[in-house]
């Protein structure tokens, strides 16, 4: 875990960092952060427990334990990453370990929304490109420069056109991924909706 953790604030447009590859489909949030670590009233100490059980099983050989990955910040995964439980503790643990962006074949819906809500852009690439990155990472470290505005990822040897939902992209570029302020702006419309909804009056 990085000791100098500061959560992202405001506009996010460029992410530069080393990739860390994690191979496997359907990696669920119980694996990212086992339930026993959810017994907490803040997220502060989750970084050190990310993938705890998988890491113990692999006895130091898990990508999150390898010395060469200790400064990595761009996670590269396969399909349906983050399925299962809605626990935001999962992306919070990844972020506190040092992850700033994720590139994958696909993501589970709730995990994806949680990543947006805490400022971790998630990009998708076709299976072939993901495997190309993961193979590359097997042999040498890959430093990527991500330009969110143009959805580009550049490196010495590999370049990719990343895919990201247009609404997510706009939220990161404008800083509105931290949604509370934007949602509060429409306070009077919300109050009107509250009065209009049929069932509010049923009780």
């Amino acid at each position, binding site marked *: 875990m990085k000791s100098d953790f500061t959560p992202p604030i405001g506009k996010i447009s460029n992410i530069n960092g080393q990739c860390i590859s994690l191979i*496997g*489909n*359907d990696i*669920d949030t*119980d*694996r990212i952060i086992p*339930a*026993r670590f*959810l*017994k907490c*009233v*803040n997220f502060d100490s989750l970084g050190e427990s990310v993938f705890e*059980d*998988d890491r*113990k099983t692999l006895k130091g050989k898990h990508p999150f334990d390898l010395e060469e990955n200790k400064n990595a910040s761009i996670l590269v995964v*396969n399909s*349906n990453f983050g*399925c*299962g*439980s*809605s*626990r*935001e*503790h999962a*992306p919070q643990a990844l972020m506190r370990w040092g992850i700033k962006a994720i590139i994958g074949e*696909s*993501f*589970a*819906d*709730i995990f994806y*929304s*949680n990543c947006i*809500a805490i400022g971790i852009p998630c990009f998708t690439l076709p299976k072939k490109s993901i495997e190309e990155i993961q193979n590359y990472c097997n042999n040498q470290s890959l430093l990527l420069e991500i330009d969110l505005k143009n959805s580009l990822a550049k490196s010495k040897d590999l370049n990719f056109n990343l895919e990201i*939902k*247009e*609404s*997510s*992209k*706009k*939220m990161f570029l*404008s800083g*509105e991924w931290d*949604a*509370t302020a*934007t*949602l*509060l702006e*429409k*306070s009077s*419309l*919300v109050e009107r*909706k*509250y009065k209009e*909804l*049929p*069932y*509010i*009056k*049923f*009780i």
Partner: protein
Amino acid sequence: MSQDTLFDKVWDLHKVSSLPGGSDQIFVGLHLIHEVTSPQAFGALKDKKLKVKFPDRTVATVDHIVPTDNQSRPFKDNLAEQMIETLEKNCLEHNIRFFNIGSGNQGIVHVVAPELGLTQPGMTIACGDSHTSTHGAFGSIAFGIGTSQVRDVLATQTLAMNKLKVRQIWCDNKLSKGVYAKDLVLHIINKLGVKAGAGFAYEFAGPAIHELSMEERMTICNMSIEGGARCGYINPDEKTFSYIKNKLYAPKNEHWDRALKWWESLKSDENSIYDDVIKLDASKVEPTVTWGITPGQSISINQQIPLLDELSPNDKLVAEEAYEYMSFKPGQLIKDTPVDVCFIGSCTNGRISDLRVAAKVLNGKKVSKNVKAFAVPGSEKVATEAKQEGLDQIFKDSGFQWREPGCSMCLAMNSDKLIGNQVSASSSNRNFKGRQGSPSGRTLLMSPAMVAAAAINGKVSDVREFIN
């Protein structure tokens, strides 16, 4: 794009505004909270100096961390005690209704809200828990959210969301004897895959769904998320309305008449447009058991664990991981697999009808001496009803332990856990690696009736042999 489905109608009704990025601001009609995913949200409110916008639209209970053996306070587990105290304090400070232990209304949040009549057709319902999809059984649009979104709902009663597409899953005919809603939903997830639902709401429809009781419908919608769909729903009908009628928070008197009229107008139109439609024959479904590490890895009781060659290229990677983790050989039969622990409970199958079905199988029989078996009612109301019917005694006489309500070993945040590589027969919803509290524990998901049968025989069994 879908049109005139219940999902479209409820979404449009709750839309507050279009946000600059292209997503919608959606009003949340009912917000449910519990002790695990809310403390950080209340902390963030405090940091931002915000109040709860509409405290009357949020309801709390405690479920994930509660012990099921001894619930006296303070809890033996200090961290669990700290979490319940934090929730108590937050609810008191923000004037939020809280159903605490001993109130008579505490239990698993997705069992409690329907049984109190809080869950109603046409609502949007959010909760910091992925199984919030359960409430869709009533024709509401219900989905799980993370803690930052819990913060947003508390502060604004709204969420920023992209509208989902709608896939109708049409189930023809009806389930045969000894086959339950759990079998049907495991079958659906197996056929469609665990990620097929990403970006979709699932509308479950057709004669087989119409035939199901409200509690069975909840089981189906509950597991939508295991198929990747964060929202699953069923159009409301007479069964829905009569389930709600006279519940504590159900509309009363003239409100009831108005509610009924509105609810009847909500269902998907006959000529509504879906983004996708899938049809299947429910009469072909057999008692189903998972063999792997995702809820999609299931087979019928008499089938063999699939060979690698029988699987699609996308499923092979996880299958190989599953054979190794579960210590199963491809081609092996799932029937007769020895089990160590049998668990009946959870938001999927911890309701009174689940306990009735299991008790019927257990009545007059004994749990195998090699098995630890325990039943955890989904709520205090379920526990009371079970006791009134004498079900607790049937469970206890058979050798099952009878516990207090909570989430228990579904996710093992309390002391109910597997040990080492024990195998559990479980009526819960997830068979992920380590899910039930041991990093090498193995979970076989099945219906409560099948868990009862496994408990008696000490191995995976076909419940139809018990009920014929």
